[in-house]
């Protein structure tokens, strides 16, 4: 048997409320993700794509199903048990940084909590910041002193500085201008080439995911309706909803 996948999500479900008010937001989700793979999760608001990331990173408990990391079940663990494996990056990163700390101080906190050894932490931060294409001096600024795109790249740097096995990106470019978005993708792409980054990338932008994901999963009402390579999804969509979404993508040419 080949090596176990990095992440396996097996029959996972999530519901909020009880009795009559019970509301199912995720139903029977199955995903396997190998090391070095980038999976795009696409869906419209309310389809449950952010909840899925919360479940994988143990920010919320699952209502059913099991989660495996390298073949080991980790269902029901606490966020602090899994944060060395997964780092989540959110849409609004300015809110995710402490406004009273410089970016560097925030990163030191992450390193102190998560890294095996805290030696050379300044150098590691500088390396990571450089890798995201930013000047190292910018790390000594406060979050509000950076542009939206820069803060977002700092957030990715903070996520990666502790060397997690995988990063989970929740609409990380949706609040940004297209040119800032493209910069982020370029640096993520570089990182992928250099380090074999494993990534789940939640987005509502199909055209965007198709440019750099290995596989794309289409979600609707808490279910994955179709999953496949960008070629399969973009050129030969099977499910009606995928076709509907594709039809709504507005290209400039």
């Amino acid at each position, binding site marked *: 048997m080949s090596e176990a996948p990095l992440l396996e999500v097996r029959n996972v479900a999530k519901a909020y409320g009880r009795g009559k008010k019970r509301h199912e937001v995720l139903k029977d989700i199955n995903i396997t993700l190998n090391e070095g793979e980038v999976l795009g999760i696409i869906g419209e608001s309310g389809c449950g794509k952010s909840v899925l990331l919360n479940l994988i990173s143990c920010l919320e408990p699952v209502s059913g199903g099991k989660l495996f990391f390298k073949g080991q079940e980790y269902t029901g663990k606490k966020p602090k048990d899994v944060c060395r494996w997964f780092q989540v990056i959110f849409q609004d990163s300015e809110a995710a940084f402490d406004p009273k700390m410089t970016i560097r101080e925030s990163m030191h906190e992450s390193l102190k909590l998560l890294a095996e050894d805290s030696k050379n932490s300044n150098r590691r931060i500088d390396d990571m910041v450089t890798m995201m294409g930013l000047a190292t001096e910018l790390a000594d600024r406060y979050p509000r002193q950076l542009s939206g795109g820069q803060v977002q790249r700092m957030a990715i740097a903070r996520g990666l500085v502790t060397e997690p096995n995988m990063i989970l990106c929740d609409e990380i470019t949706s609040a940004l201008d297209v*040119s800032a978005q493209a910069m982020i993708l370029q640096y993520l792409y570089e990182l992928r080439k250099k380090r074999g980054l494993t990534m789940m990338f939640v987005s509502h932008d199909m055209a965007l995911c198709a440019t750099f994901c290995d596989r794309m999963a289409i979600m609707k009402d808490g279910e994955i309706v179709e999953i496949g390579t960008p070629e399969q999804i973009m050129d030969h969509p099977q499910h009606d909803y995928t076709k509907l979404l594709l039809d709504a993508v507005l290209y400039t040419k």
Partner: protein
Amino acid sequence: MDEKYLLEINNLTVTYGEFKIITEVSFKVRPGEIVCIAGESGCGKSTLIKAVLGLKQLGAQVTEGSVILDGRDITHLGVEERRQILGTQIGYVPQNTRGSFNNIRSYDIQYKETMNSHGLPFIREDAVKMFKRLNFPDTDRLLKYQPWEMSGGMNQRMAIALAVLQGPKLMLADEATSVLDVTSQKEVIEELAQLRDELGWSILFITHNLGVASHIADRLGVMYAGRMVEYGDIRKVLDDPIHPYTRNLLAAIPGRDRKMPIGLEGRPPLDGAEWEGCNFVPRCKYACDACKHKTYSLNEIEPGHWVSCAEGRGDR
């Protein structure tokens, strides 16, 4: 040429206090035309709408230039005179319609209130007819609902229907589809285009999404840091962009070819910063010495295509 324009923006400069947000912007909108103004956050595209609406309480001050609606200078109208043209001559669809409707009052009360405050009667049948025309679901009961019961997309369409009922000649839409899902976004812009075809409206559509612009606009203006850098027929601007900023913007958008988009490093100059020469120089890979000292204004490089760059002038 003696052509008739519905809206003329002439050499408009707008400030917030001492900060200059829009600098010397000029363009014209013909009757029945959809004009999109695109650009990234902070480029002054929403301020442009505020200047046309004349919403002084929002702080925008027109310090130079003029706004001409149907031959009438409306730049500095008083409150009462302005009230007579807002709604009935200039319609407005904001980005956040959740914030402009009261969430817990039914649509019919809010429709009636709005119509009456613009001196128009509210005729329920007309509203229902409008909903039918726009293929809204459940048209007969729609007015009884309250905004919180609706999706964001449906709410946005109700706001558009309300603006239409007042029968304006010019519609201003400020990022009217940006908060919507892709599927409802497409519905909304197709409705706007349909209404234009049927009613002969002009629409001034502000968006950061060039895909949306490509889908509905006749003409496209690209703004950068308060200046119009390129303006012209939509296909000319999108298929044959001249200004380096327009080219960068287009390269940053994921296309059909699934190639990696190309970004643009740096950020625009701060609001109101005094600037010598072209303000795109720090991010421009074609900039030459002349660009550092010279400010370019829009120049017609081919019929229906204006560019404010040395690139389009052949003097490089």
